[in-house]
């Protein structure tokens, strides 16, 4: 049978989902990606490359564990360096996933459906990268459990008034809740994979993971209750996480850190960076897995809009930082803002940050740019670099030139710092590629719900293909 879907697959659409999909075709389409026996050479090359990079990361980490944190560029006065920059960068990237899966769900933004699964996966994998940095930074790794709320041998407890301790609670809660939310969302789709697997082993493995899900109405009822409530809990949670990360700085009295604008602008920056990463992941994903009919131009354009909006908040934050510095009349703040950040030895990073995060994203005002994939990718890369620079500027410029000129020193990251940083990108890519191959990259159950909903919106006139149960293997 000539499949109308296949013919129109390559055409870009501004619908949330290309018309013509029904329950059967969407199931086939998405399960087809993970169940196809063919291994795409692009994917394989990606995995090999990512594995190599992850190896570089592992080497850097082993060297750090064997020889201590001294192999890093961190030294007085720069007690924080790449470890904290990258920690904040990765955590921030994760935030878009939660925003898509929770906040947009509560706001009834239908378009989130086809990007929420892999965005949540992105969150999880990004938080995993982030979490490794503080664990390495503690120095004596065998004592990392001292971060838990346990008394030491002198019966002294961790300092619960410290933002660093708040961070331990925030990040571990965030990782746990994100993982659980993701798994709950996966269960019905794992059941789909169980029912459609042909090999015995796949059936058993997916069957175990699906916990015997059978789509019962009462099960769905409780499922939706918990899903919505998790979304409701994740919304303030995600805001709290980056707020607390910003407290790591804002509660300190270091010039350039001690600012009330930090929480909102950190949260906006996190979403900003996260959407950039979501675009960078969805563009190759839709091309390689042939998902242009479900991750449409509408999604890319909407993500561009969110980036523009959050980018403006971030830019406002930069402007306010300068204003606060100037208006404070505090000589340390003034020195930090003007002599140091704008015209000091790290001025290049400050001005690059303004260009990458402040100026370049403004092209997204133009619809032409929001709907052009090369333009969106270029802006996303610029934002990813810009958000990394933001953390670099905040951490390095503030620490290297604090109150005492006698303690001033520049920060120089070492090869090990770079190995771990570039390596985490490889490890992140590796996890993401494995996820794409094994699990449904798009929530199939939610896509069916979307199709059901759209049928009601568009009245009775269904697109060709619905109500037909001819199995359309052509879409593989």
């Amino acid at each position, binding site marked *: 049978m000539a499949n109308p879907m296949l013919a129109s697959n390559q055409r870009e659409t501004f619908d949330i989902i290309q018309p013509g999909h*029904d*329950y*059967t075709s969407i*199931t086939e389409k998405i399960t087809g990606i993970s169940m196809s026996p063919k291994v795409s050479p692009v994917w394989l090359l990606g995995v090999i490359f990512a594995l190599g990079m992850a190896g570089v990361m592992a080497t850097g980490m082993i060297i750090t564990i064997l020889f201590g944190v001294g192999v890093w560029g961190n030294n007085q006065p720069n007690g924080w360096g790449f470890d904290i920059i990258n920690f904040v960068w990765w955590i921030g990237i994760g935030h878009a996933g939660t925003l898509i899966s929770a906040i947009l769900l509560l706001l009834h933004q239908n378009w989130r459906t086809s990007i929420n699964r892999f965005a949540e996966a992105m969150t999880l994998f990004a938080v995993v990268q982030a979490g490794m940095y503080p664990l390495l930074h503690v120095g004596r790794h065998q004592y990392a459990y001292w971060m838990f*709320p346990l*008394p030491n041998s002198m*019966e*002294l*407890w961790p300092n*619960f*008034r410290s*933002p660093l*301790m*708040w961070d331990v*609670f*925030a990040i571990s*809660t965030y990782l*746990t*809740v994100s993982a*659980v939310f993701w798994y*709950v969302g996966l269960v*019905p789709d794992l*059941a*789909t994979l*169980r*029912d*459609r697997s042909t090999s015995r082993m796949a059936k058993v493995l997916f*069957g*175990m993971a699906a*916990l*015997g*899900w*059978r*789509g*019962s*109405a*009462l*099960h*769905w*009822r*409780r*499922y*939706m*209750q*918990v899903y919505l*409530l*998790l979304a409701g*809990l994740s919304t*303030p*949670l995600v805001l*709290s996480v980056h707020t*607390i990360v910003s*407290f790591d700085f804002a509660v300190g009295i270091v010039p350039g850190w001690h600012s009330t604008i930090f929480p909102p602008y950190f949260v906006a920056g996190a979403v900003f960076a996260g959407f950039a990463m979501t675009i960078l992941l969805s563009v190759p994903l839709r091309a390689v897995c042939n998902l242009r009919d479900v991750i449409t131009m509408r999604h890319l354009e909407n993500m561009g809009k969110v980036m523009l909006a959050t980018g403006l908040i971030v830019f406002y934050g930069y402007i306010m930082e300068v204003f606060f510095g100037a208006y404070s009349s505090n000589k340390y703040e003034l020195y930090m803002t003007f002599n140091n950040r704008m015209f000091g030895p790290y001025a290049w990073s400050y001005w690059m940050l303004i260009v990458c995060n402040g100026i370049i994203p403004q092209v997204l005002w133009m619809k032409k740019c929001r709907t052009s994939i090369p333009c969106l990718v270029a802006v996303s890369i610029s934002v990813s670099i810009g958000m990394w620079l933001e953390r670099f500027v905040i951490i390095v410029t503030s620490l290297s030139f604090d109150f005492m000129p006698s303690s001033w020193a520049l920060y120089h990251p070492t090869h090990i710092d770079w190995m771990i940083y570039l390596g985490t990108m490889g490890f992140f890519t590796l996890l993401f590629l494995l996820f794409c191959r094994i699990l449904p990259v798009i929530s199939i*159950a*939610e896509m*069916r*719900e979307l199709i*059901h909903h759209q049928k009601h919106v568009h009245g009775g006139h269904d697109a060709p293909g619905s*109500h037909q*149960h001819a199995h359309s293997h052509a879409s593989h």
Partner: protein
Amino acid sequence: MSQTLAHSSAAEAGLQPLYGISVEFDDPEALVEAARKTRDAGYKRVEGYSPFPIEALSEALGQHQVEVPWLMFGAGIAGGVGGFGLLAVTSAWLYPVNIGGRALIPWAQFIPITFECTVLLAALTGVAAMFVLNGLPEPYHPIFNAPNFDGVSSDRFFLCVEARDKQFDAEATRKFLEGLGGLQVSEVRESKK
């Protein structure tokens, strides 16, 4: 009574006991309509199965369960009280440190951890409650024996009247379900053999 009848006749024929009778649909609206009719006909032990959540189906089947939200609410409160309690007890009683006369329980500085504990406990309890109350994990269930049931995770919709329903009668129920306009009506056995 009818249940024992069904069981004994099944035993005579060398079949597994009857779990229920299912009817298959390919459209969610038809399933909801059928569920409503079945409930109106007086059947109580009726369950619908669908590839995505259908709120109207749950309503048509008269499901009003709200345990999960309440359990989450309770767990959230317990998490908040517990989190704040941990901080207060350790800071004010177990190892009080006088820092320039500042409060031993600075509640404002306790907000972040209290909040995180609230969210963590509520979320974990919610998910655990959902799975436990749903009786999951349960890798095997008799309904899996319904023909075509693997379509329920893709594009098929099922309604099953269970044999333990007081009004269940293998013949009459079958006839009733056949009148609902589904694709096929089938007997579902407790076990395959």
